[in-house]
């Protein structure tokens, strides 16, 4: 069961071209391509004729031609050609998904079309703001998406998993402030008078004691903006070295997830050495997360029914986010929104 009335990151803009690309989102096969005018398109990646993936076909002008028997669909999913006969069966249509392309991200709405509002796509403007420099990574995590949400809302794991990059004992020694505002849950931690973590100290050129902070802002069900940084002792956050980490978490299925990661910084934006160090350092951080969460997924799959997580105060953001997700899931269940697709026939 997934929350389908939501925007999910399907790809980076740079990944989508005139060569169709396949993605699985919430167990739904999706294909992405660009029309000749550059507009990105998202269609269900399954020909209604015999289930062949349309992304294995070829583009003919702005339409996709199935590589199996040549059924052709326009960018709205309407079949325009069946090579073997003149009459096009009424049900020969593929689902077209609402799509928003913004700041280098491609978002796809997987639910009811009339509920898709572009205004609810999360803010990612740092990606294209010239005052910020951005590093991106893409990962496929071998775990359910909820584990990634938990991971981002409880950053005390940095003290143990990311010791060589962004971790330190002082993280779990400081409490959090959790804010719940509608479907947004944030977990904020201020760590005054601490050393910068290894990865930041190197790239920021910092020594001595600073005020460090991070605030994970979860926009349920698919996106986290992590507002973090380091500022002078007692100084306002906005004066500091600021980092915006944007995390697009897109379920593939019940046990795996796409992870689209962008790290924008407002310091050393022309410093190529810093960028190179961050590319490598952040890849290490993400791989450490991927490895840990894959193990956690294995652990959970073998956990006896009825056992549940033992949450502590540091998990307050995790707990509240789970409740928001449960509420969204209940709303999804009560709305009669499930579209049953019948097997196609000619």
């Amino acid at each position, binding site marked *: 069961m997934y929350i389908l009335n939501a925007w999910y990151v399907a790809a980076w803009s740079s990944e989508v071209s005139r060569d169709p690309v396949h993605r699985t989102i919430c167990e739904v096969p999706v294909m992405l391509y660009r029309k000749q005018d550059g507009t990105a398109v998202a269609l269900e990646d399954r020909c209604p004729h015999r289930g062949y993936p349309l992304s294995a076909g070829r583009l003919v002008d702005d339409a996709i031609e199935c590589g199996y028997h040549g059924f052709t669909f326009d960018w709205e999913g309407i079949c325009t050609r069946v090579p073997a006969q003149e009459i096009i069966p009424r049900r020969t249509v593929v689902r077209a998904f609402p799509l928003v392309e913004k700041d280098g991200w491609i978002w796809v709405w997987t639910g009811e079309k009339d509920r898709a509002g572009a205004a609810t796509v999360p803010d990612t403007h740092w990606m294209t703001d010239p005052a910020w420099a951005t590093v991106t990574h893409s990962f496929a995590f071998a775990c359910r998406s909820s584990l990634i949400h938990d991971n981002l809302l409880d950053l005390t794991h940095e003290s143990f998993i990311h010791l060589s990059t962004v971790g330190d004992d002082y993280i779990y020694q400081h*409490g959090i402030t*959790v*804010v719940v505002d509608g479907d947004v849950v944030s977990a904020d931690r201020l760590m005054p008078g601490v050393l910068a973590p290894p990865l930041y100290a190197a790239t920021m050129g910092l020594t001595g004691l600073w005020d460090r902070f991070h605030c994970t802002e979860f926009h349920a069900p698919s996106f986290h903006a992590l507002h973090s940084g380091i500022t002078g002792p007692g100084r306002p956050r906005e004066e500091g070295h600021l980092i915006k980490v944007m995390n697009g978490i897109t379920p593939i299925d019940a046990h795996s997830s796409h992870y689209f990661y962008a790290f924008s910084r407002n310091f050393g934006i022309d410093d190529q050495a810093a960028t190179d160090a961050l590319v490598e350092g952040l890849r290490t951080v993400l791989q450490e997360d991927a490895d840990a969460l894959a193990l956690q997924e294995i652990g959970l799959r073998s956990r006896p029914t009825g056992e549940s997580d033992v949450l*502590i105060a540091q*998990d*307050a953001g995790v707990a509240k986010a789970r409740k928001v997700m449960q509420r969204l899931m209940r709303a999804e269940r009560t709305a009669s929104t499930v579209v049953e697709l019948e097997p196609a026939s000619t």
Partner: protein
Amino acid sequence: MMLLLRAPAAHLDPIDPSSEVEIAASPDTQARRPWEWDVRITRRPEGLSRPFDGAGLGRHHVDVRVRPDAVNAELRTVDVDTPTSLERDERELWVVVVESGRLQQGRFTLAPGDVLVCEGDDPLSLTVSAAEGGRVSMALVALRRVDGQTLRWVP
């Protein structure tokens, strides 16, 4: 741990006489077993309560129910017009409901209906003031275990 809930009372339907919203409860699981306490905004108070119409809802109450063999509760009104430091015993859990005015707590501004829940040792001292001048009135619920142990809570 401090938890700020933005106007959960705003979810109340002022027309429905049975409308109520649960602000915090322990244990905060679906089964609520073994039930120990809860704090609600409701039209039908059952425990320690005081009137509340902070979200423009008409007559409601902040209502605290406890299992008396487990938890003690105290409910009081705190009015703030100058910066004030509220000191919490580490063993206590506080639920603060803003009733009127705009409360400043650190970098947060709380409007009527917003709720703060504080537990554990961070922070023990809550420095509050009235944002934009004026006066703030809030309901403060203090919960503590009858056995003197620290009352811990995870939402």
